[in-house]
């Protein structure tokens, strides 16, 4: 049913529709409303789950790890410092190939303290071995949340659903929430074949010596890679039932013959779309990357074919390197015949408002032959002392 809902409230409802056996989370801005709404659903008797109130994100992640390892459908959520406090456990969850779902309400990472949106938190655990999917709007966040439970159990991998903190979590918009019956019909009951079982004892995450470790890592890498078709298949199955999709691995919009493309993840895509609609001049392709891990290299190479220039928007940086997404796109396109020239910019760090007029500025910046290969595009360098520029 279509309703006007705050993003966080909608996510709590979506999680509840999936009948999680265990929910454990510790509140942190801007994820808090998700956890609050879940605990409210439990208190009001609308969600029957083991809601574990924990004293830290480390415990939240540990509880869902243990729960899922014993065969329970488990869910957690966090942001920023909370994600970092979970980091050790997040690697454990992925390394043990535990299927569960976590929402990251994306927020900048301290210091300096900043509660606003960018992607530094999920990027910090980029290499943990989780699937990472990004959402443009709250409808996609709801649909991806429900899909993530299926992707997790179809791949035996944990799935991180990344949604921009505040920009999505605190925004009310019209969202279609499926019914419980629809979701129950679409999402099979949770099954984890390797679940811990006293009648058939086994270990998860035990010591692995150098004799086996490279093989374990290879198989983890291969497993995440193999999630690519699963993510597409699950979105296609969703579209068949619910008559809307989330864009599979990535989507391409705009004129077929465009020579310039802009690539971004998350809610920024919406603002860029509006900016492109209102921009005079030759159109540009807009590439929305939904799957960040696994990285859809083949789909990306196909999406950029024919482009002369590709502007890659980062919402986080790796100091001393530049944009993270930009670097990954470059490495993916390396060696591709007629690969577009990459212009990599970080925008909106720490919640800096992104106006639609940035589209015009980005498009004109590619005309500048002296433009740096990477910039924090909306930084006002005049605010810095000369030695810091």
């Amino acid at each position: 049913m279509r309703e006007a809902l705050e993003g966080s409230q909608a996510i709590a409802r979506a999680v509840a529709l999936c009948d999680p056996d265990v929910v454990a989370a510790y509140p942190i801005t801007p994820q808090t409303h998700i956890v609050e709404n879940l605990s409210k659903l439990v208190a009001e008797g609308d969600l029957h789950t083991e809601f574990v109130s924990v004293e830290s994100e480390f415990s939240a992640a540990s509880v869902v790890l243990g729960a899922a390892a014993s065969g329970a459908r488990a869910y957690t959520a966090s942001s920023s410092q909370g994600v970092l406090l979970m980091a050790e456990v997040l690697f454990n969850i992925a390394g043990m190939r535990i299927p569960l779902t976590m929402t990251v309400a994306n927020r900048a990472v301290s210091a300096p303290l900043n509660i606003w949106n960018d992607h530094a938190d999920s990027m910090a655990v980029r290499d943990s071995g989780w699937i990472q999917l990004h959402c443009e709007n709250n409808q996609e966040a709801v649909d991806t949340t429900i899909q993530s439970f299926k992707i997790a159990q179809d791949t035996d991998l944990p799935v991180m659903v990344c949604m921009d903190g505040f920009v999505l979590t605190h925004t009310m918009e019209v969202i279609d929430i499926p019914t419980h019956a629809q979701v129950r019909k679409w999402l099979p009951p949770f099954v984890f074949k390797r679940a811990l079982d006293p009648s058939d004892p086994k270990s998860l995450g035990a010591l692995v010596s150098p004799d086996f470790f490279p093989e374990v890592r290879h198989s983890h890498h291969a497993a995440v890679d193999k999630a690519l078709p699963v993510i597409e298949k699950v979105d296609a199955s969703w579209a068949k039932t619910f008559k809307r999709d989330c864009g599979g691995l990535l989507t391409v919009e705009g004129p077929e013959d465009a020579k310039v493309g802009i690539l971004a993840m998350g809610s920024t895509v919406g603002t860029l779309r509006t900016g492109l609609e209102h921009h005079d001049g030759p159109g540009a392709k807009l590439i929305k990357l939904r799957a960040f891990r696994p990285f859809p290299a083949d789909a990306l190479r196909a999406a950029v074919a024919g482009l002369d220039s590709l502007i890659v928007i980062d919402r986080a940086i790796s100091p001393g390197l530049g944009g993270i997404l930009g670097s990954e796109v470059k490495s993916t396109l390396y060696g591709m015949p007629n690969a577009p020239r990459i212009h990599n910019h970080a925008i909106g760090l720490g919640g800096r408002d992104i106006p639609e007029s940035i589209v015009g500025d980005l498009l004109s910046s590619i005309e500048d032959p002296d433009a740096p290969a990477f910039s924090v595009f909306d930084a006002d360098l005049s605010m810095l002392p000369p030695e810091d520029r």
Partner: protein
Amino acid sequence: MIEYRIHGRGGQGSVAAAYLLASAAFEAGHTCQAFPAFGAERRGAPVTAFVRIDNKPIHLRSQVRTPDFLIVQDDTLLLDREITDGLKPGGAMIVNTKRSDDEVAEAFSCRTKCIPATELAMEYIGRPIPNTALLAAFLTMTGHLPVDALAAALKGRFKGKLLDNNLALIQRVTGMVEPGAWKETEHA
């Protein structure tokens, strides 16, 4: 698309006002988007919230920089003359104050309507939350949405006596302002 900017103080329910207006737009069959200017909120500090209403999907996520209308929940915020920054030509401002329209309009170049929304809220609801009165007056004057849509949105939030009091307050306020007075600026 019509864009609104709401100015209030922490504790007055600026975000609630934005959500209420967006919910009313949804009840009237429009698409909507409402969000706060995210800050480290504390009671009494200036708070801003934004609403967009349209008849097609809203993709833009930036803060509202050039609003069609301003809703000001606390008249001490008028001391900041920059409060009307970015207001579109022909835009208008509704203010919660006991002062007269002319007195407030004198200091600003936009059309202005004053409603003693806090006093009305105290009388009807017993709490100094100006949202229902301000939005009822605003919708009556602009005709953007039927006032019934506001009532429907309130029904989704409140029950019993509190709801009845809010609905009675709507009735009172709609009789205090000129219906359609700001209608010519409607372009949704």
